[in-house]
């Protein structure tokens, strides 16, 4: 089933899918973070989304999009306060504010969602573009969605484009030198490797796109 908009019930289902995603990808992310980090990314992401999914499901669709996203962000901040955990929590909390009061997310609302998410991460993490972080994929996600909204693209198509842009941006992180977090210590060794946090960003948007496109995941 293609979803032209996402409502609160969809969001709850999406969190359930994200939860499954990060449970599946736990070891992949552990291994990836292990290369130039501390191997915890798979653990924190699976915990964060398990807790968020449970919390939004318990709250139910009647709470509305804004409240559900706030709940998800708040519980993530508590359950998984690693760099990525807190940045992801910040992202959802800011997105919550951006879409507060809306009944459904169409392309324009989704652009506002990811713009707020991106800016929250940028503000909290103080990274610059090109620093080889999550921000390097969030930025093209936000701008691609803003373009898509301006061009009147439907949500599934818009999200697919954003995910493609994120893929390309993730690929581009390989050439970058890590400037933040534990990876920064590895200096030159980070060149050639894709950034772990950016990988999580791609997983999030790709899964959202697949979900909106109604493809089996």
């Amino acid at each position, binding site marked *: 089933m293609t979803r032209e908009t996402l409502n609160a019930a969809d969001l709850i289902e999406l969190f359930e899918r994200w939860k499954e995603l990060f449970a599946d990808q736990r070891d992949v992310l*552990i291994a990836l973070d*292990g290369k130039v980090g*501390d*191997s*915890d990314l798979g*653990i*924190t992401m699976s915990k964060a989304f398990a807790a968020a999914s449970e919390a939004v499901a318990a709250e139910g669709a009647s709470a509305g999009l804004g409240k559900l996203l706030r709940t998800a962000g708040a519980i993530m*901040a*508590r359950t*998984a*306060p*690693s*760099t990525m*955990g*807190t*940045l992801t929590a*910040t992202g959802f909390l800011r997105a919550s504010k951006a879409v507060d009061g809306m009944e459904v997310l169409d392309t324009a609302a989704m652009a506002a969602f990811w713009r707020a998410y991106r800016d929250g991460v940028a503000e*909290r*993490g103080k990274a610059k573009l090109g620093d080889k972080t999550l921000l390097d994929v969030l930025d093209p996600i936000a701008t691609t969605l803003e373009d898509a909204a301006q061009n009147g693209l439907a949500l599934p198509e818009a999200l697919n484009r954003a995910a493609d842009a994120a893929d390309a941006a993730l690929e581009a992180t390989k050439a970058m030198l890590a400037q*933040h*977090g*534990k990876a*920064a*210590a*590895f200096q030159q*060794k980070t060149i050639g490797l894709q950034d772990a946090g950016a990988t999580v960003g791609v997983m999030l948007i790709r899964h959202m796109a697949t979900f909106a496109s109604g493809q089996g995941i």
Partner: protein
Amino acid sequence: MKKFLNDPGSFVDEMLEGIYKAHPAVTHVGDDLRCLVTAKVKSGKVGLATGGGSGHLPTFLGFVGDGMLDGAAVGGVFQSPSAEQMLDVTKHIDQGAGVLYIYGNYSGDIINFDMAAELADLEGITVRQVVGNDDVASSIVGEEHKRRGVAGIFFLYKAAGAAAAEGLPLDEVTRLADKARQRTRTMGVALSSCVVPEIGHATFSIGEDEMEIGMGIHGEPGISRKTLAPADAVVDEMMERIFAETDYQAGDEVAVLVNGLGGTPLEELYILFRRVSQLLEARSVTAKHVWIGEFATSMEMAGASISLLHLDAELERLIAAPADTPFFQHIAG
């Protein structure tokens, strides 16, 4: 993984239960075991808080007590506590004189302490931050702001703790903690990996005859990996890097901390200190205060670090002051 534990998921909380049972001088905020505070908050005093991942005992929470810290929020093994937990500790220990956060330079911790400081500010609590970055191996001179905080943070706790105990105001305690930070340098060396309980296998692998100079306390890479050298040569290499960026003059005094990373016997730490002491004597620098043992560990990692604090009169006074915490006692004299 060969550890005394019941369940990797409850490792930290069961450890904390043990700590509260063993040390009635500390307690927790509300129901959250991970928000550890002194049982007797001293009224009017500047509050000192720290925090960071578990797995480094006695860092962080082990230094909460008289003459040292007032509270610590700890996370999972090598995981930052949450901003909310830091805020809870902050609110508990604040006596109206403000709170100083002293913690290590790790992105997860910074992001959460920053968030906590913002939240505390909204509640009318003045918060200052000093971020320990003593690990010489983790960035070059000129990029000290990128350096990790490791065992040398103990000196920051000690200096700030004594300053707060003297009744100094927040800005002065902050100045002194920051001065200790600027004058502290650490170099570490690892011989074996740690195992994070929830991961279950070694964080990194290292050959049976290899050492890594400059490795971080979560297994972050160091400066060079090579064949394990004799203890004196290892110390020489570590101290050379510290000497290269400090300006000790003959007659100066330092405080020395030879820290075991968790799996290294005390005997070996003393063999390392012997050489440290020889090198200092050769420069006519006095090791005025010496601590040898485990201060900031990395679970069962074999290895050691050497921290030096370049003393001056006021820092010496603060380092010499008495302290009494569950994991560290210092009888002045």
